[in-house]
């Protein structure tokens, strides 16, 4: 596009400056504005007043005022957090029950320890001394083979036990013999 064309367009558009508004437009506009302002004042709802004041408040927040407002908000947040119930210490019903128990007074010299339930299943039997453990294993085996209780007392105290224990009630043949029986025979 050439420069003269641009000027021609500009000159043509400049003619629109001669378009003028209707006679008395300004007076009419001011009159209508006054009416409108009065009507707005009369009919202004509480909501719009609050909104406008909030907008004014935020618009005037600059520098130190903004810092002050931020400090107030942070302060309120801290107070709110402190007033709230301590959610980190709240536990399940068992813990609540334990909490109740632990509140009970104990005789002097006693100490209430919290139950360790976390590894109780895995550690079952491991806490026994090695001797007791070796005595218990035949008992458990006998339960396994018999499907019911075997001669637990004897086996439990017979350290020379060989082979799986069999209950006398089901002894139908000389499949197994205990050493003491053989001796007696």
């Amino acid at each position, binding site marked *: 596009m050439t420069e003269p064309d*641009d000027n021609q367009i500009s000159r043509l*558009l400049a003619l629109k400056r001669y378009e003028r508004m209707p006679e008395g437009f300004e007076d009419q506009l001011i009159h209508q504005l006054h009416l409108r302002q009065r009507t707005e004042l009369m009919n202004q709802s509480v909501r719009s007043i609050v909104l406008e004041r909030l907008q004014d408040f935020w618009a005037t927040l600059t520098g130190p005022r903004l810092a002050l407002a931020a400090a107030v908000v942070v302060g309120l947040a801290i107070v709110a957090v402190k007033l709230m119930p301590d959610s980190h210490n709240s536990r399940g019903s068992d813990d609540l029950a334990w909490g109740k128990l632990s509140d009970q007074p104990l005789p002097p010299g006693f100490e209430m320890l919290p139950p360790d339930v976390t590894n109780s299943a895995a550690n079952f039997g491991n806490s026994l001394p090695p001797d007791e453990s070796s005595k218990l294993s035949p008992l458990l085996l006998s339960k396994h083979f018999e499907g019911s209780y075997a001669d637990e007392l004897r086996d439990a105290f017979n350290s020379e036990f060989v082979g799986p224990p069999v209950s006398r009630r089901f002894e139908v043949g000389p499949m197994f013999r205990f050493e003491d029986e053989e001796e007696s025979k």
Partner: protein
Amino acid sequence: MNDKEQQGNGTGSTSAEEDRELVERAQNGDTRAFDQLVRKYTPKLYGLVYNMTSNRDDTADLLQDIFAKAYRSLSRFLGKSSFYTWIYSISVNMTLNFLKKRGRRVILSLDDVDSGIQNDPDFIKATTGHSPLRDVGLHELQKRLNEAMMKLSEDHRTVVTLYDIQGLQHSDISKILGVSEGTVRSRLFYAHRQLQTYLDDLVK
């Protein structure tokens, strides 16, 4: 002061000081001071809004809204920019919002033309000799210009109105629209090229 400056804010520092004083008085509750501002800026803003909407009724309604909003927001006006830039920004934004809502529903209406146009050197030059404008009536010319303006996009129409019709400078337009001067120049260039196509028979 060049032609653009005279036609633009056209006022210089005296007017800016006068505005500041009126604004301060209005902010302190003097409604007459605000009325004075309305009287002062109505002709300029009327031209701006009318040339963007090409409709007189819409212009009247919009001007009411613009001044009502300006009055409500006056307490927030801190004087960082001139009142002139501030009120123009409000006017342009509100008019653009209105145009978006109005969509393509456009009813053109023509304003009265100042008889002073008959003495305007540009008009005389344009309508004498072999110019095609010689055979075109004033109202026909007005209608053609309005139609061509309405074919422009809203952004392009805004810069053409502010620069070519209102006579503002690029720097003022960039402040009012919140865009760079380069953007203003670019929009003007493309707008003129489009208008050249629409008004081809008038500018030959």
